[in-house]
């Protein structure tokens, strides 16, 4: 017998989709301090603030004295405005709020995509949360969160287009236009296009249809238009130059931890591995037809994930819908679960929902605006004192220093956030300035032969470096330098 609920209850009771939104949104607020375990959010907040205040998008760097006024493509200016707006309204709580909204919307879209691929709701919920867990390793208040969102928007549309369904073609260049102005990972969109085009070509050849294939034409057309749209940005073609230059530098990709291959001794590696295995097994066992492009996509994204752990979140967004699509057969083979799912689907289809998503968002915004601390430790959102030189910067504010500073590069973004425009940094976590500067940074930090020449080259008068760095140990014994400040995290040296 079909159970009926009252019309009011249909609006008041949350749908599973609302639960996904609320869980992700609130969880991000709980762990929000972790979004600042990297210094880059500091730089992005300040960049966004400059754009909002001056109403211009700066294309030259003003944060590093080492590359002063060099071309610095504003590759994430839209995202920076987003974070800066949050910061202006509520400080770091506003930044966390923006990140929570992006992630909650992303996983709501993922859940909707799973449902549109006929994934049983009983599996769609855990699979969506599993996807969120796979991406959690890279939850930082940085523009790449927007890339996760754009990938979740683009991939389903492209999949439908490749399967011959009707999708408004104007959406594709529009998505890429915004994405290219938000974060550099937009280039991955063209990998997905390439996979669908290659898959479509393969199937056309196998079915001896030749190139007279409307889907293929649409794929080429949208790829071309979207490619053209990426040039509509403050620096035009130089954006591509920046992106390609960055990923082709093996020195940088070997140095930066998030570009390293995943460590399978860690939980994040396990999650990735389980997902690969589950996807392959499900797709192999499933009787449901899958298109060739999906094989290419799975192989490509697995390769990208194995190459760099920062690609694992994108791997999850692209491949999870494929896995989910083939999960119904698994559920149907267990009658008790199939019946439970049937019951859930019957109840769920009656609900109208939305109330809870809106209500939780509004209440959390209101609480944060009134100063309520929503993070798990009830300490408020901040940069971690152990990882960042928080107290050393407090000391600098009280004891201003003249001359050029040398700083540890992961701290650059934080120093810009705290000290700019009074101080410019030696280096920060951005790499648009190429390999030379980061090599020089490493040379000084490790006190490699010739480090003193680099000090002279840049006229460095004082240094802010980690207490346990080789440089700190060397300078401690160097009579040419004196310690001005020291705590558990950082030490400040000044030239005598």
């Amino acid at each position, binding site marked *: 017998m079909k159970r009926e609920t009252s019309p009011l209850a249909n609006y008041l009771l949350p749908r599973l989709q609302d639960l996904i939104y609320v869980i992700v949104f609130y969880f991000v607020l709980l762990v929000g301090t972790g979004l600042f375990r990297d210094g880059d959010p500091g730089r992005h907040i300040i960049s966004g603030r400059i754009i909002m205040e001056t109403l211009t998008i700066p294309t030259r760097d003003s944060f590093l004295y080492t590359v002063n006024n060099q071309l610095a493509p504003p590759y994430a200016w839209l995202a920076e405005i987003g974070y800066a707006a949050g910061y202006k309204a509520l400080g770091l709580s506003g930044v966390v709020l923006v990140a929570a909204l992006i992630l909650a919307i992303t996983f709501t879209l993922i859940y909707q995509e799973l449902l549109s691929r006929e994934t049983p709701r009983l599996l769609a919920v855990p699979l969506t949360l599993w996807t969120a867990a796979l991406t959690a390793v890279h939850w930082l208040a940085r523009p790449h969160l927007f890339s996760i969102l754009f990938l979740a928007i683009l991939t389903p549309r492209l999949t439908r287009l490749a399967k011959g369904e009707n999708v408004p073609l104007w959406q594709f260049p529009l998505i890429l236009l915004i994405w290219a102005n938000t974060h550099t990972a937009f280039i991955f969109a063209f990998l997905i296009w390439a996979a669908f085009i290659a898959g479509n070509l393969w199937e056309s050849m196998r079915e001896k249809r030749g190139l007279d294939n409307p889907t293929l034409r649409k794929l080429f057309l949208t790829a071309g238009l979207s490619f053209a749209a990426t040039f509509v940005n403050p620096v035009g073609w130089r954006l591509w130059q920046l992106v390609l230059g960055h990923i082709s530098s*093996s020195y940088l*990709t*070997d140095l930066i931890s998030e*570009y*390293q*291959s*995943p*460590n*399978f*001794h860690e939980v994040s*590696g396990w999650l990735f*591995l389980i997902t*690969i*295995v589950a996807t*392959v*097994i499900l*797709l*192999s066992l499933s009787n449901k037809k*899958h298109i*060739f492009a*999906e*094989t*290419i996509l*799975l*192989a490509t994204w*697995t*390769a990208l994930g*194995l*190459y760099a752990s920062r690609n694992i979140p994108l791997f999850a967004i692209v491949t999870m819908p494929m896995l989910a699509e083939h999960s119904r057969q698994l559920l149907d083979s267990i009658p008790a679960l199939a019946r439970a799912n049937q019951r859930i689907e019957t109840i769920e289809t009656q609900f109208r929902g939305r109330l809870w998503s809106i209500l939780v968002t509004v209440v959390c915004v209101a609480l944060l605006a009134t100063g309520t601390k929503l993070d798990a430790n009830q300490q408020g959102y901040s940069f971690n004192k152990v990882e960042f030189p928080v107290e050393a910067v407090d000391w600098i504010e009280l004891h201003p220093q003249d001359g050029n500073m040398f700083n540890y590069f992961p701290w650059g973004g934080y120093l810009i956030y705290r000290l700019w425009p009074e101080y410019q940094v030696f280096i920060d976590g951005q790499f648009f300035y190429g390999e030379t500067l980061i090599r020089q940074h490493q040379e000084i930090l490790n*006190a490699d032969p010739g480090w003193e020449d680099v000090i002279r080259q840049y006229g460095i008068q004082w240094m802010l470096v980690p207490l346990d760095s*080789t440089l700190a*140990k*060397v300078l401690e*014994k160097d009579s040419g330098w004196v310690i001005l400040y020291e705590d558990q995290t950082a030490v400040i040296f000044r030239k005598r």
Partner: protein
Amino acid sequence: MRITIRQLFVAILFLALFSMAMRPIADPDFWWHLRTGQLIVETHAIPHADPFSFTNQGKTWIAHEWLSEIFIYSIYRIGGNGLLILTFAGIITATFLLVYLRSNERPYIVGFALLLGALATAPTWGVRPQMISYLLFALFLFLLDRYTESRKKKYLIPIPILVLVWVNLHAGYALGFAILDIYIAGDILELIKAKIAKTGSTNSPILKNILILCGILVLSVLAALANPNGIRLLTYPFETLSSQAMQQNIQEWFSPDFHQVEWQPLAWLILALIGAGLLGRKSISPTKILLTLVFGYAALLSMRHVPLFAIAAVPVLAEEIGSVVRIRQDVRQVGRLLKWVNFLLVMCTVLVAGLRFVSVVQEQANTEKEKFPAAAVDWIIQHHPAGNIFNTYGWGGYLIWRLYPEYHVYIDGRADVYGDLFINDYLRIEAGEPGWEAGLAHEDVRVVLLEPASLLVKELTQSLDWETAYSDEKSILFVHK
């Protein structure tokens, strides 16, 4: 004799593999294996306590590779490094020959999969006891596959005997138990599948088979007790696997770094398995799936396990590719002229293998100089500096070969002898962390031999108590004033 194109292909494939497998001896552990072999041969006793270090001398040492070490030393005595290189290239080739024989696909397809598997494992090849473990691993899989196909017990009888040999050759013998467990688990899955499909009963041949394999497992465990360390060796492999210091500090226990070109064939192997698996949709037995998954996980966890994955996965990949690619069945025999061309081709490959052998043997002396502090050790032999030597972890084995018994080492590749606490202390000293002076003084160290990039070099250079006695591009030697 008439040979087909296929036979020619197989001959060239394995000759090429043999050539690839010949490489100079560069493993840091090789040297202490050699010295241990010599010690056993000369004293007619297997050591149970550490004879080589001054820091842990007398501490219990489970010389689990004693038979391999005798084997390595005996070959060295007979034919020096050259014969060792040839022998281990032969062992590696034999391993892949067994992988080839396990594959039921067409030779070209198996050849492609095999080549991919060989490339993926190539970074781990060398004159090392592990190579013997890989051979036995492949042999176990070969025997169990043959048994699964034919149900003839003659394929199972050698297994406990092989365990008896394996347990005395290398601690990797535990892999034999893991393989048997996987075959039992695979049969249990088959049984469940049959139950679900209602095609089996409790008296089914599958159940009987499970019981037989369990019996072989029990016999194998009993056979494993026949070793100089008795029951202690049964827990030894698990102690190694759970050592945090080893997992975190020894490179071959790290996950593969796919930025390195040498590990990219492993990525191709994984991608080929995924791609061909999805395209071909070949029905693979639960046992083979389990083997691929278990050893695939092991390979991603630690690069030293990559060969296990390749050995297990190559036949699966060949099957998958075989279901996608259709190659004409070509068993044509060749004509008289082609026969001579083929003969010439095989001879050319033999010639290439011979030339490769000559070049590898010539390269050996340079490799020793590039990888180990050969000149610094010459200096020590000439000048006899007094006192204990603090040395880099990776050089301990080389010093044991060159300097024992005149000098003992601080540390060497036998991480199990030293234990996590000692290794962590060593790492702190080697990194020049505060307290390094006391650490060296505690062990009465008067000589320090390091790589120039070591952080301790900076400290010693600045210290007034130490002076540089010798240095070159490879090493720097300090003596206490």
